[in-house]
């Protein structure tokens, strides 16, 4: 076993150079709440840890002209305490705050939740619904992609060699907009989503839907955008027929596994139920804005 090295660069360029030189056994280290567990359980044996927390961009929340930039290494606890962000994207912040205990919240980062690429990651459906983008630095420079293009399978992302996530971009909230994230777990706290649903809507002045995005987690190998939700919701109010169609679209988008935490039948059914409830909450929030 090669000796493990630790580096904590202060610039994005230095981190990219270290990751590129370190090869496939180099790992990005931020909150450590997944990486340390994987090392402890000997699922991975990295030879280099590149701690990105001393790079200032990864630790800041900044409001820019058209979007909010959230550093990849901002923790759940920090997001939960950010009143302005919470008011703008309550569903995204709630989703991040559902991850783990207080102790985990103090360390776990929004970028880590995305890059760990668990199909059940709570923040990811909420970020996809919010039309968030991921800013990626690498040997070829900086690029950004939609969040839904990041996970490609359980534990796998579309990041190329030497690349890492520096920040996430959330659009500035439009008027009459709201979002929500709900998950099903068998306990009340400290559990992994059996189904997760994120919904984001903007309404017209007459109360009908102007834009809508819905994404599901834990019901497929990756979180997925349910494109049909937009067609069902836009132009309509949230009446019984619309909710029924939304539930059906959510269930149709599921291709879950059967495991000890939930059966295929259960996950598929609950996705529809949570889709309607999350849409109703997002709608209420939009009406108040």
């Amino acid at each position, binding site marked *: 076993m090669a*000796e*493990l*090295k*630790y580096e*904590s660069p202060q610039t994005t360029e230095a981190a990219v150079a270290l990751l590129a030189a370190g090869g496939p056994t180099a790992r990005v*280290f931020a*909150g*450590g*709440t997944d990486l*340390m*567990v994987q*090392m*402890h*359980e000997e699922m991975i044996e990295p030879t280099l*840890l590149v*701690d990105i*927390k001393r790079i200032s961009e990864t630790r800041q929340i900044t409001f820019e002209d058209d979007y909010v930039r959230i550093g990849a290494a901002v*923790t759940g*606890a920090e997001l939960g305490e950010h009143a302005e962000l919470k008011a703008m994207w309550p569903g995204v912040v709630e989703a991040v705050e559902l991850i*783990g*205990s*207080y*102790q*985990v919240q*103090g*360390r776990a980062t929004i970028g880590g939740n995305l890059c760990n690429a668990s199909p059940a990651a709570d923040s990811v459906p909420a970020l996809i619904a919010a039309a968030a983008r991921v800013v990626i630095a690498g040997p070829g420079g900086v690029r950004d992609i939609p969040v839904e293009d990041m996970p490609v399978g359980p534990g796998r992302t579309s990041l190329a060699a030497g690349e890492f996530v520096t920040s996430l971009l959330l659009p500035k909230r439009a008027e009459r907009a709201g979002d929500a994230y709900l998950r099903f777990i068998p306990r*009340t*706290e*400290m559990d992994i989503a059996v189904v997760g649903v994120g919904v984001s809507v903007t309404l017209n002045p007459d109360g009908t839907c102007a834009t809508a995005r819905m994404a599901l987690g834990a019901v497929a190998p990756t979180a997925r955008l349910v494109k049909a939700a937009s067609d069902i919701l836009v132009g309509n109010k949230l009446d019984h027929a619309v909710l029924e169609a939304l539930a059906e679209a959510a269930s149709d988008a599921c291709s879950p596994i059967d495991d000890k935490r939930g059966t295929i039948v259960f996950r598929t059914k609950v996705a529809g139920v949570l889709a309607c409830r999350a849409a109703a909450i997002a709608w209420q929030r939009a009406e108040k804005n």
Partner: protein
Amino acid sequence: MAKNFVTTTINGDEVEFASYPGQSLLDVLRSELHMTGTKNGCGSGDCGACTVVLNGRPVNACLVLGVELDGAEIETIEGMATGTKLHPLQQKFLDHAALQCGICTPGILTMAKAFLEKNPDPTESEVRYGLAGNLCRCTGYDKIVRAVLDAAADMRADG
């Protein structure tokens, strides 16, 4: 194995230690500094037995690296009492018999102290959520929750 030298503040005192990459803060505390009050439960961030306060936030010491802590401020269970005078939470845990085997106790006390600093007047339900990251296999939690609520009341009365 190459070691990095790290300077931290632990319970108000400047502490320097040598740590190899991959070594957790929990292992640094117990093996390098012989501060064994912080307990090793699961090693994977599930049980909370190793809870310490890092730069003002409760964290699982098993999920933190020693080498990343240069300049950090750490509070452990060893800093909770003032000399021989117990912290109100420690005293209430004795009064309510809120422990049996005691392995979870340092982590629960540390988490409860951090929790009450944020929320000095919690409901029972809030205490249970606040301690959701701390597992206890002896007490059934009721005595722990009562001790925390009782300590909170006393701490509010003492301002």
